């Protein structure tokens, strides 16, 4: 699950829980508030009444009567003022029933005794219980609506904010980690973020990449230097053997021994040369790029290698579009790439087998060239390792030295060509090379 989704879900969940709790406690709260408010109103009214009495005398209410009583039309509220026994003392707010004009109703009643001109009076102000709770339902509903709207709003805000905050993370992943070609290019700017964690992550990744690059460059330099250093001793040996072979009084067995030595030395030389070639490709020493017609390239390769086809009685089919042009590619390297593939297709083929070279367009608009054979094939376990150095897929026989496909891979990597292999044991192998940069000269 994505981090932003996870965060949003969590925040939404926790908000919902809190809201639920609030909605459950809402009736109780509203009731409390209404009751408090009623008490407050009653007290305010009492204050008003007492103020009037103090100001205008009790007669203001009594008007000569023994007691005073007043109520609203629907009897929701009433005020009563009556003289009481001297000893009676009350100062309460409580729920009680009163009979007003034959109606027995429940009231919240404020009762208070007070003295005026040495007489004890009881003041009662009442409000029906029904009127106290009459707004509760609407209030609750309204509060719930407002809450839901607020929650939705806050979720939207959260989501936007989370997205904004997390954006640098996906940018770090995208620019630093996904689809990176090795060795990494490090001239990129740090990802912009005010989150220190992301900054730290970004910096650590950049540091790690620098270290990997350094290790890689060192290894490459070593390969290159080692191969160079080997060349001079190989030269000396080679020259000595050559001069020895030119001696006139050489016996046949000595000559044969020298030949064997020369062959072995030649092998060493080729390994060294191959490693150097790989190092040079990886060091980007093949800068020349041009348009190349694949058909011409394959014709050249087949001409070069035709005697080997005849030797093994192989049948080769070349189905390459004659108008196709591959763009911005190093011709020599591409030649080497396909030469190695065709060479392998011959080497691992059976007597009288087939080799097919054909092109195609993929759904993604790539131009695909495939080289397939009817040879020994590669087992599933070995398939992932065929491009590794010095790994021979056919270990039982002394074929080559295992750098041919490594060269193919480094050339493909250098030109950002995708390369795929399909193989079935004893059925054959198919190499596919995909080109993105191509054009057709056909009008």
């Amino acid at each position, binding site marked *: 699950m994505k981090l932003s989704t996870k965060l949003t879900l969590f925040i939404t969940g926790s908000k919902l829980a809190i809201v639920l709790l609030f909605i459950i406690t809402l009736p109780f709260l509203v009731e409390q508030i209404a009751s408090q408010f009623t008490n407050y109103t009653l007290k305010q009214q009492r204050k008003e009444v007492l103020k009037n009495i103090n100001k205008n005398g009790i007669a203001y209410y009594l008007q000569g009567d023994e007691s005073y009583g007043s109520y609203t039309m629907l009897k929701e509220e009433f005020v009563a003022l009556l003289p009481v026994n001297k000893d009676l003392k009350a100062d309460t707010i409580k729920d009680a029933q009163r009979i007003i004009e034959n109606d027995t109703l429940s009231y919240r009643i404020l009762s208070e005794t007070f003295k005026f001109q040495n007489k004890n009076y009881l003041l009662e102000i009442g409000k029906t219980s029904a009127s106290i709770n009459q707004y509760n339902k609407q209030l609750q509903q309204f509060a719930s609506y407002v809450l839901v709207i607020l929650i939705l709003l806050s979720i939207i805000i959260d989501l936007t904010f989370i997205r904004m905050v997390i954006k640098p993370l996906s940018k770090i992943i995208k620019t630093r980690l996904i689809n990176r070609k090795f060795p990494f290019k490090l001239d990129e700017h740090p990802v912009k973020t005010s989150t220190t964690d992301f900054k730290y992550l970004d910096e650590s990744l950049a540091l790690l990449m620098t270290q990997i690059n350094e290790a890689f460059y060192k290894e490459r330099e070593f390969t290159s230097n080692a191969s160079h250093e080997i060349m001079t001793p190989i030269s000396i040996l080679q020259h000595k053997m050559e001069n020895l072979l030119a001696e006139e009084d050489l016996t046949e067995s000595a*000559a044969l021994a020298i*030949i064997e030595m020369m062959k072995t030395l030649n092998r060493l030389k080729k390994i060294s040369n191959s490693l150097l070639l790989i190092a040079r490709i990886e060091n980007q020493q093949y800068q020349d790029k041009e348009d190349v017609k694949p058909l011409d390239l394959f014709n050249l390769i087949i001409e070069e290698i035709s*005697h080997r086809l005849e030797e093994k009685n192989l049948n080769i089919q070349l189905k390459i579009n004659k108008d196709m042009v591959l763009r911005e590619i190093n011709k020599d390297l591409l030649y080497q790439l396909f030469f190695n593939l065709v060479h392998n297709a011959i080497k691992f083929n059976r007597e009288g087998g087939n080799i097919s070279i054909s092109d195609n367009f993929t759904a993604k608009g790539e131009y695909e060239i495939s080289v397939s054979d009817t040879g020994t094939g590669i087992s599933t376990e070995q398939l992932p390792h065929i491009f590794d150095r010095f790994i021979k897929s056919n270990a039982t026989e002394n074929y080559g030295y295992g750098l041919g496909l490594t060269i193919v891979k480094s050339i493909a990597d250098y030109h950002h060509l995708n390369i795929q292999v399909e193989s079935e044991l004893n059925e054959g192998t198919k190499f596919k090379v995909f080109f993105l940069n191509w054009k057709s000269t056909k009008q």
Partner: protein
Amino acid sequence: MKVLIIEDEKTMAFEMEASLKKAFYLCDLAHSFKIGLEKLKLNQYDFILIDLSLPDGDGLDLLKEAKKHNAEAAYIIITARTNLKDRITGLDLGADDYLPKPFYLLELQSRMQAIARRKFNIAEDLLSIGNFQVDIKRRQIKYELEEINLSRKEFDLLSYLLLHKNRVLTRVQLSEHIWGTFVNDDYDSNYIDAHIKNIRKKLNCHANTDWLETVRGVGYRVKQ
């Protein structure tokens, strides 16, 4: 012909000298930039072979200097450095050829012959073997007046054998000559045999080719 070999690896210089002497070249050796320059100032040479990585200086600088004193000489750069830049700079500075180490001594000689042919007009262009005439420059082979059609590789192979006639050439020497330093995966291929077979087949229609010998286990030789 006088050759100056400027090479700091003494063993290598000696082997080159030995091989060139057999081919009747007069050799002079220098194992450093300084000695090389001294000899260049004192003597005139036909060929100057320069190793690029000398202990006391860069061969490319020596090449520049040498041109002032030995302008007529042919220069061949010999180096273990294989980067293209050096090669281009070397050729720009007026080197006639560039041989990456390791190379076969026979290859060196054939390059020298090619330069001699091109630059000094002294080596023969027209060779004859058996009843065939070979024109190295035009890359033609004729039987009496009829031209025989050989492929590029076949002609390279045959002319190489002809230029080193009476010497046994091994398959690796031959294959390096026609393939150059192009890297291929096979170290023990018999494609040289296939080419020789084709050459024999094409020539045998006209006359016999007993002069093109197979030396069992070793290689091939043109005997005259």
